C-alpha cells in the first residue's frame, strides 16, 4: 500500500474492548482507512482495517457511499419506468438486472413471453455475463499488477458492447429486455455478429489462461488467499462464483430454472478450496459454459413474436398508432399510467454474473410498484469479506476484494 494514497477523513476507531489481545498487541495495533476513494476497492467501498504489523486483525466494511435510493425512486415510478433504474444497479451487467426485473413483473402480471424472446434473453444475458466477467478479470488482474490482461479484456468487451449497441443503440444501459419481451426485435445481423464473437472468443480465452492460470506470480498471489469455507459461505449468504468456489454446486439457472434456461445443456464449474484462485478458475470456466449456452440458443432461435401479444403491457407499433385508434389509446395509457398488476407479491431469483440476484415486488393493485426491493449478491459478499481477510496480510486484501467481484452500485443501491 502506498503511503501517499488519498485518505478519506480519518476516523478514530479503537480496538474494541472485547478483543482478546494481549497488552503488547493492543499497543501496537494501527487502524487504517482503506477507501472510499481507492483504486482497488472497485468502487467506493470503505474498509476500516485494524493492523498488527502487516496482519489484519479486524476488518470493518463501511458501505453506503453510493446509496442511490433506487428502491424509493422505483416506488414513485410506473413499472415501465422503473426498468431503467435497474440498469444502474449492477452496472457491469445491466441486461441481467433487466432480466430479473422483467421476470418479476411478468410473474406479477401472470404472463409468459414468447419463445423467441426467451431465447434472445438467454443469449443477451450470457453475453452480458461474459462482459461482466471480462471487467472483473481485467480489473482484478490490474490490481495484482497484470496490466496487459486489463487491456486485452476490454478489447473483447468492446465486441460485446457493439452487439448491444446494434440491438438497442446504447452500449451499456440498454433497457433492452423489458417486461413483456424485448424492446425491439433482434436486428438482422445479430446472429452473424454473435457467431463471429463465438468463433473469436475461445482463442482469446486461451490467451488469458496462458497469461494467468499457470503464471507463477498470479498463482502465488491468489492460491490459498481469501479462503472461505462452504459452511461460512452458506451462512453468510454468499452465492454465485464465491459459493461455487467453496464447493457448493448452487446455480440458480440449474436449481430454479427461469426464462427458458431449462432448455439448455451446460455444466456448473465448482471449486474446492474457496480461495481467490478457485474463484478465478470458476469464473473463467463459466465463460466457457456461457459460450455453450449462447451457441445452443442461437441454433434453436425460433421465429415469431418477440413480445407478448397484449398492448396493455407492451407498447403498440408506431405505424399502428397513426392508423388505429385503439392502439393510440393503448400507447397513451401505457406511457401515462402504465399497467396495474393484481395485488400480491413475488420474489424472482436469477443468476446474475455476481450471484443470486433476487427481485422482490409487492403490488397493491396500483400502477406503481408498492415495494421494489433487490436482493443484491454483492451485498452479502461484502458482509463475508472480513471472514476472508482477517488474519491475512494487507496486500491480500486487494486480491480478495477483486475475487468476490463486488459492484458497489448493487451493494448500496
Amino acid at each position, binding site marked *: 500500500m502506498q503511503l501517499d494514497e*488519498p485518505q478519506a477523513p480519518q476516523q478514530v476507531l479503537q480496538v474494541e474492548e472485547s478483543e482478546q489481545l494481549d497488552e503488547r498487541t493492543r499497543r501496537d495495533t494501527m487502524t487504517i482507512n482503506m477507501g472510499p476513494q481507492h483504486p482497488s476497492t472497485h468502487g467506493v467501498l470503505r474498509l476500516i482495517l485494524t493492523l498488527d504489523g502487516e496482519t489484519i486483525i479486524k476488518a470493518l466494511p463501511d458501505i*453506503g457511499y*453510493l*446509496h*442511490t435510493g433506487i428502491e424509493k*425512486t422505483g416506488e414513485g415510478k410506473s413499472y415501465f419506468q422503473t426498468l*431503467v433504474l435497474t440498469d444502474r444497479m449492477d*452496472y457491469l451487467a445491466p441486461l441481467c438486472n433487466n432480466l430479473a426485473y422483467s421476470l418479476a413483473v411478468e410473474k406479477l402480471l401472470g404472463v409468459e413471453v414468447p419463445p423467441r424472446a426467451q431465447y434472445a434473453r438467454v443469449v443477451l444475458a450470457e453475453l452480458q455475463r461474459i462482459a461482466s466477467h471480462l471487467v472483473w478479470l481485467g480489473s482484478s488482474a490490474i490490481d495484482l499488477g497484470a496490466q496487459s490482461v486489463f487491456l486485452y479484456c476490454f478489447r473483447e468487451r468492446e465486441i460485446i458492447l457493439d452487439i448491444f449497441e446494434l440491438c438497442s443503440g446504447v452500449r451499456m444501459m440498454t433497457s433492452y429486455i423489458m417486461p413483456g419481451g424485448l424492446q425491439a426485435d433482434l436486428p438482422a445481423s445479430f446472429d452473424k455478429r454473435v457467431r463471429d464473437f463465438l468463433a473469436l472468443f475461445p482463442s482469446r480465452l486461451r490467451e488469458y489462461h496462458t497469461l494467468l492460470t499457470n503464471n507463477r506470480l498470479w498463482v502465488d498471489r491468489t492460491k490459498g488467499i481469501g479462503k472461505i469455507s462452504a459452511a461460512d459461505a452458506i451462512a453468510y449468504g454468499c452465492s454465485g462464483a464465491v459459493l461455487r468456489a467453496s464447493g457448493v454446486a448452487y446455480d440458480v439457472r440449474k436449481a430454479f430454472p427461469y426464462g427458458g434456461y431449462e432448455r439448455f445443456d451446460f455444466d456448473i464449474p465448482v471449486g474446492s478450496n474457496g480461495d481467490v484462485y478457485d474463484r478465478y478458475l470458476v469464473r473463467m470456466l463459466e465463460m466457457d459454459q456461457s459460450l455453450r449456452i449462447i451457441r445452443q440458443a442461437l441454433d434453436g432461435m425460433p421465429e415469431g413474436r418477440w413480445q407478448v401479444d397484449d398492448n396493455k403491457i407492451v407498447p403498440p407499433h408506431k405505424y399502428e398508432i397513426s392508423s388505429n385508434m385503439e392502439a393510440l389509446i393503448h400507447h397513451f395509457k401505457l406511457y401515462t399510467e402504465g399497467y396495474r398488476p393484481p395485488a400480491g407479491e413475488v420474489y424472482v431469483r436469477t443468476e446474475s454474473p455476481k450471484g443470486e440476484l433476487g427481485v422482490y415486488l409487492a403490488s397493491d393493485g396500483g400502477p406503481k410498484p408498492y415495494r421494489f426491493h433487490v436482493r443484491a449478491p454483492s451485498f452479502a459478499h461484502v458482509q463475508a469479506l472480513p471472514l476472508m481477510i482477517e488474519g491475512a496480510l494487507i496486500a491480500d486484501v486487494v486480491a480478495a476484494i477483486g475475487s468476490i467481484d463486488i459492484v458497489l*452500485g448493487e451493494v448500496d443501491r
Partner: protein
Amino acid sequence: MGIDNDTTERRPNPWAPVQYVTNAQTPRAPRGTQPPEAGNIILTQVNKVLDWSRRSSLWPVSFGLACCAIEMMSASASRWDISRFGAEVFRASPRQADLMIVAGRLSVKMAPVLRHIYDQMPDPKWVIAMGACASCGGVFNNYAIVQGVDKVVPVDIFVPGCPPTPDMLIYGLNQLQEKIARRMPSPPDPLAVTGQTYLGSEG
C-alpha cells in the same frame, strides 16, 4: 461577481435554488482579451508554454463512482485510448493529479470525500463532471443523491450521457484543453460563494 446571495432581509423564497452559481453565470474571458500578464512579453511566452504543457498532460485522479467509471476505464483502454491526448495517467493520489473526472452519481455520504479529494489536488486543477448524474442528478432525483457535483466543486466541463460513451468523454477532454489554451477561468468555488464549508476542506 454580481451574485446576490443575501436573502436575510427579504422573505425567504421557498424555491430559491440550492445552487447559486449557474453555468450561465460562469465568468469567461471574452474572445480576444489578453491574459493579465500580457504586458510582459517574455512571461507571456512562458505562460503559453506552461499552458501547452498543462493541457497536453492532464493527469486525472481516478475518482470512479458508478457506471460512468466503467466507460472511463474503457476510454483508457486500447480501443479509445485517451492517452492520445495525454490523459491516460490515472493517479491514485490527488497530490499527483490536476484533473478530476467525477464519473458517476454522488451521494450525500460521498460528497465530503469528493470535496476532500478535490482540496488535496494542487493548483491549477480542473473538474470534468462525467454523465447525467454527476452533472445534474440524472434519473435519481431523490433524497440520497447530490443533484450535480457543481454544488460541491467547481465544474469546468459537463459531459452529458448516461453513461457518456468514451468518445464523448474524450471530446469533453478536448474541450477542457481548449479552455486551458484560451485561459478561461474555472467557475467560482460553490462553497466559497455560498459560505459553506465541509469538514476537512482547506480554507
